[in-house]
């Protein structure tokens, strides 16, 4: 029987209250939202928080809004809401690509975007999605808010920039004209973690790639920000050859480890092919209407 080690439980009634509790209880306190990453870790004693602060009642952290030129997503927004959002499907179809292959629909009823990002598991999909989209995240503590990029957010394996006494509250994704995005994943069976996955976004202006975002899942100890492959795309006209080149660079820049899901060369091959496919699909989805 798998049961977590004992802990104290409290239910937050406000964001400020949750942060005050985190501050008061110190590093032995953890936030719980969907719980589908944290509870399995606690059952295995990989995490042993002495206090859990349940934020599931904080409806003010659950939203997907289009405002001031960016889409803002509350940290408590659940996978099922990301999957069903028409706003995201229109502006960032990469979310629906990823959400239909993250775990299964029953798990997606509970898991949240904030929890997925804060778990910072290299094999998790939304970390790569947000990285490819050049998202920023809002981290709040008793001293106020700070906004960090995904590069700054990812500190190491299972480690993020969210410190003791702080709460991830929001994800902000800039909306620029000419954007398209896609996520490609290969898994052993429905609902499994990726063998490898690639998230890609491109923004095309006057027939050239003005900006590109590429991030990979499950092919290193952390989410791979494929910055060298992105650089190879900037200023170029989109083509299948160019996307293949970018895929080859991304494959070089990842560092997979062999495990039950496959050997290193297979995962590296997948990283390249999936990057190329994700870029091609992202480019095919570039929105025609200017200024949206």
């Amino acid at each position: 029987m798998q049961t977590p080690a004992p802990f104290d439980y409290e239910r937050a009634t406000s964001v400020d209250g949750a942060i005050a509790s985190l501050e008061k209880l110190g590093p032995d306190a953890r936030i719980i939202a969907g719980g589908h990453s944290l509870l399995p870790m606690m059952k295995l004693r990989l995490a042993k928080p002495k206090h859990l602060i349940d934020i599931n009642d904080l409806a003010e952290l659950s939203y997907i809004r289009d405002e001031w030129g960016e889409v803002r997503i509350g940290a408590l927004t659940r996978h099922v809401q990301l999957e069903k959002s028409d706003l995201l499907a229109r502006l960032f179809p990469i979310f629906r690509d990823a959400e239909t292959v993250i775990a299964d629909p029953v798990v997606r009823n509970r898991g949240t975007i904030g929890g997925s990002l804060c778990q910072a598991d290299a094999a998790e999909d939304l970390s790569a999605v947000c990285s490819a989209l050049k998202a920023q995240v809002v981290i709040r503590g008793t001293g106020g808010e700070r906004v960090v990029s995904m590069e700054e957010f990812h500190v190491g394996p299972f480690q993020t920039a969210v410190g003791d006494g702080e709460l991830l509250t929001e994800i902000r994704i800039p909306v620029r004209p000419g954007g398209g995005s896609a996520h490609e994943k290969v898994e052993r069976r429905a609902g499994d973690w990726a063998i490898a996955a690639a998230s890609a976004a491109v923004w095309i202006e006057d027939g050239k790639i003005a900006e590109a975002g590429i991030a990979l899942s499950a092919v290193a100890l952390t989410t791979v920000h494929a910055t060298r492959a992105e650089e190879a795309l900037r200023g170029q006209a989109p083509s299948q050859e160019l996307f293949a080149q970018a895929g080859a660079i991304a494959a070089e820049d990842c560092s997979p480890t062999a495990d039950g899901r496959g050997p290193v060369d297979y995962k590296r091959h997948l990283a390249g092919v999936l990057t190329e496919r994700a870029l091609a699909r992202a480019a095919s989805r570039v929105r025609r209407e200017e200024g949206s």
Partner: protein
Amino acid sequence: MNVSIAINGEQVSRDIEPRMLLVHFVRETDGLTGTHWGCDTSNCGACVVLLDGEPVKSCTILAAMAEGHEVRTVESLEVDGELDPVQQGFHEQHALQCGFCTPGMLMTARALLDANPDPTEHEIRTAISGGICRCTGYKNIVAAIQWAAKHEAASREEVRA
């Protein structure tokens, strides 16, 4: 701590450790052993119950997190000796052998048909993809849910007529 959860319409209050999982609250403190406790890792789906109408894996939710919410278990499906159409469908289509996955499959199917009364085969297969059945190969489970959808549609027609 004291936790109070509405299970199948009845308020159940118990003193428990905060670490108690919802599946154990349902099975051990309330004696509703129809909900099965399988993999304990949110993979198999045998423990699926409805939380405020949505299917969830009760092995990966603390009982304390369900306080103030409504839980519906497989025991609620049959009313006054009459089986729910999804139960009848499993019977008609021989959708179980050992029966271990069945409570989770039934509750997942019930939630699917409540939200989408006329699902495609693909939608059914997606909905139950969080449940593992090692006996049937899923074919008869899909057929059972299709049977239930068809019969529920027919009874809605009768009510209208």
